[in-house]
């Protein structure tokens, strides 16, 4: 049997949260809903950093080396001289690599976000739970 607490104010909500945690409620039992981002909640719950940071890293590195590989490969696959510059002209290729770093890093991050935040909730996309203006604590059924 889940218990639900609803608060209008942030302070009341935080007090109750602290109280619940001190009373030994496991953080995995808690489901919290806030109208805005409250970093303090994460501190209270001492949540692990999470895996999202891996996504920009992988995406960014992939973008960088992918960009470099693309430009070098295409330049070598048909080596045309322009302006007397070397076939593999690294400075301009680095620009492409840099841009792809950002592009793929961002896109991978976003994909990671959707994945980790379990969005979109396809099952109830049209009728999701309310994004309330209240601070809500739902404590899942307490086990003995």
């Amino acid at each position, binding site marked *: 049997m889940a218990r639900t607490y609803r608060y209008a104010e942030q302070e009341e909500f935080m007090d109750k949260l602290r109280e619940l945690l001190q009373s030994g409620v496991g953080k995995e039992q808690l489901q919290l809903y806030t109208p805005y981002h409250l970093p303090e909640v994460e501190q209270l719950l001492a949540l692990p950093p999470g895996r999202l940071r891996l996504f920009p890293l992988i995406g960014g590195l992939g973008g960088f080396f992918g960009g470099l590989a693309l430009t070098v490969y295409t330049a070598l696959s048909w080596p*045309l*001289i*322009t*302006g*007397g*510059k*070397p076939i593999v002209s690294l400075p301009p290729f680095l620009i492409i690599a840099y841009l792809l770093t950002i592009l793929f890093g961002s896109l991978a991050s976003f994909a990671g976000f959707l994945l980790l935040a379990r969005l979109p909730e396809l099952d109830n996309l049209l009728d999701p739970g309310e994004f309330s203006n209240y601070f809500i604590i739902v404590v899942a059924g307490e086990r003995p």
Partner: protein
Amino acid sequence: MERRDFLQLLGLFSGAAMLPGCSENRSAGKLVSYLVPPDEGVLPGAALYLPSTCGECPAGCGLTVRVSEGRAVKLEGRAGHPVNDGGLCMRGQAALWRLYHPERLRNPLRRDGAGQFQPLSWDEALTLVVEELEQARQEGRANLLLSGRTTGTLTELQQHFCRQLGVEPLPQFEIFSHAALRKAYGILFGQAELPHYRIDQADLLLSIGADLLETFVSPVGYARQFSRAIKQDGFQWLHAEPHYSLTGANATERLVLNPGSEAALLSFLLLRIESSGQEGRLPRQLLRALPAVSAGQAARLTGLAEERLERLAKQLLLAERPLLIAGGIATGQPNGLQTALLAGLLQQQLGMIGSRIEFARAENYAAVGSLHDLQRLAERLEQDRVGVLLVCAADPLARAPAALDLPGKFKRAGLRVGLCDLFDDSARQFDLLLPLSHPLESWGDAVPRKGVLSLLKPALDPLHDSRSAGEVWLELLRRSAKPAESASYQEYLFDVWHRRLDERQLQQFAEQGYLSLPVAAVPLRLQAERAAGQLAGAETAVAAPWSLVLAPSIRSFDGRSGSLPLLSELPDPLSTVSYGRWLAMAPAAAQALQLEDRDLVRVAAGDWSADLPVRLQPGLAASVLMIQGDLLPEASLPIDPRSGELVRVLDGVRLEKLGSAAQLAILAGSSSQHGRGLIPDPAHHAEIPPEQSRFYRAHPHKEYRWAMTVDLELCIGCAACAAACYVENNVPVVGRRDHLRGREMSWLRIEPFYDQAGRAGFLPMLCQHCHNAPCEPVCPVYAAYHNPEGLNVQVYQRCVGTRYCSNNCPYKVRRFNWWQPQWQAPLEQMRNPDLAARDRGVMEKCTFCVQRIRRARDRARDEERPIRDGEVVTACGQSCPTGAIRFGNLLDEQSAVYRLARSERAYRVFAELGTEPSVYYLRKG
């Protein structure tokens, strides 16, 4: 002639090539299978090179016509031809535009009662002429023939025709008749001829007024001679003129004379040289008749410094082989005949006659009349004494001075028959129009000067239902039941050649398209008494506040080539104006009147006036105004009563500022190079450009690295190269509207730059095919890249049209197709099939005539050898009358470009930018 002879000659002149003009059913439209290649005829992709003679001006330069798929696509000067020896001017290049001109007469036309022109058949037209000739004869009215200058067999046939049909041949009409010169030589030596001048034999050339490089008799020939002369050490060329001509711009020194003071200058020189006692003395009665001009007087009259005049006399005396050429503007003045006489005397005095001035090789102007003859014609017309008036290949209506009122008086003739090629305003004044074939469509010969026979042979079937003049005369003879020995003009010609030339000569004539014939020496004796009588009484004109000089135009000759679109598209070399008329004015004079380029002024002389935009001309004398002669037909210019020559310098001209500006297509952004060293200052010769340090390693070229050298000492700025480039590379002619917006398409342009003293230098600017080309790396789609042979290649199919390459080109030689290029039919037939057509939205530029490189490579590969030096000749280099442009392989140490690129004179434009151009310029001196 015998049928056997005819066929033999036919074989000789046609060779293995096709027989244009023979097929009557050329419009049959039959598709020919090329499974079995034809023995003779059209081979797709293979071009024929046929000899011919240029008919665009009277000079008669030899041509090589490139015929591809049965169409003439390019004209080139014929190497070795005695007149032009390989070069061809911009008018010659543009002659194809006349051939394919959209406004060409396509069939005979007759004006009906309502004044509209109705087509009729040749049969009807010629019958009509014969009937009218007969009727006029019965009515006792004269039948007249007024023809443009003809030479060779056509002249004979014309005379024969006139004799047989009782048609009176009028002296031939040319506005540049050189009548004063011919008359002067007639008075002095009894030879009323135009001699052949040998600039290449001279070590000092003094030209007075004669525009040797623009229109004077044989400009390409003289340019060629100049290029030979300048290679001798110490060759000096002094040019004296009141205005500013291309000729003056190219002389070693330009002497600016007060208008009308040429005679004073010559008198002074004559007397000064006479008094030096070094040269042969003139007869006493002549000396007495000479106007006594002291150095001081001469200085006052001519505007030259006394010291300069003395030095000039000294230069003439010191020169071993001096040559004086007077003519053009100098003799087109009220005292023109006197100038010509004095010049003749000086020539005699300094021993030029017979050596550097050859009467034996006189230019064929004897049949040409003067404006007096036109005046007489006008009088006869007025008296209603003219029946049929045949006008052949001449446009007196547009060229004659307005005072004669020829168009008005023409109407008095019974039947006005015009043999002409274009259906223009003048053509509309006739009653009956007979379309003339283009010289490239006709058989014929020309004798531009004594001792030169030049072949005209059809390069293609006539495009329209036209005939050559010879065919028309023969046809008329036949219809009048007079004896006409030959079935066709071709046969008539063959007959003449067969009679005059021996077997070997015929062979040579057919093969090379020209023949040098031996000439008989002409004995000359100075007829002092006659000359003295003519000298007397002539006085020197006095300079007025504004003098107006009508300069002959290099672009349109006397105006006849003005209807060719290409020649309006090419800018005038001095002013860089392409479309429109203008009044050239000295910058100082303009500043005093607060006038700038394009400001409108009203120029008036007598009862004539015109509103013209101003164009500043550095180096022009402050009191002189200049108009291109061809652009001002309505000016009622006086005729010199003594020589019958058109007076082309007007005194007492009034000038009024109008306060508004006109649109005028001036192509140069600046007439000064702002010290940028595009043409290096001669004062800094010793300066060696510092060796460029390279950021990137130079990329190697394997077999060929194409390069060009342009010798600025030889370049005369005549823009023949630019014209050749247009024709060779299908460069679109875009017209006035786009020129006003700065969108000309020329791949090669002549940039005139003037220094503080008004001296001009000419820089042919084309794609420099840079080794490190700034245009290439900025192209996002590789449309521009550097090919393994060192060419900067533009791939039209890849080009998306960002125009970044053009922006990044320091030489600004790339051209963008702002519109879909238009070729008004049948001009599209002129296009070179070896070249890709460009669409709108695509960048294009000079390719170093890559199609010619390809052709040479194919040939070399077939023969399993590398391309030889000189085997690839670009269109610009081919056309250059002075041979200033050379092309070749820079990796070949035996090649001309290798040697020239390493000469002390070699430099590259904007070398400091590190683009490493493949075009090397050779500075003057």
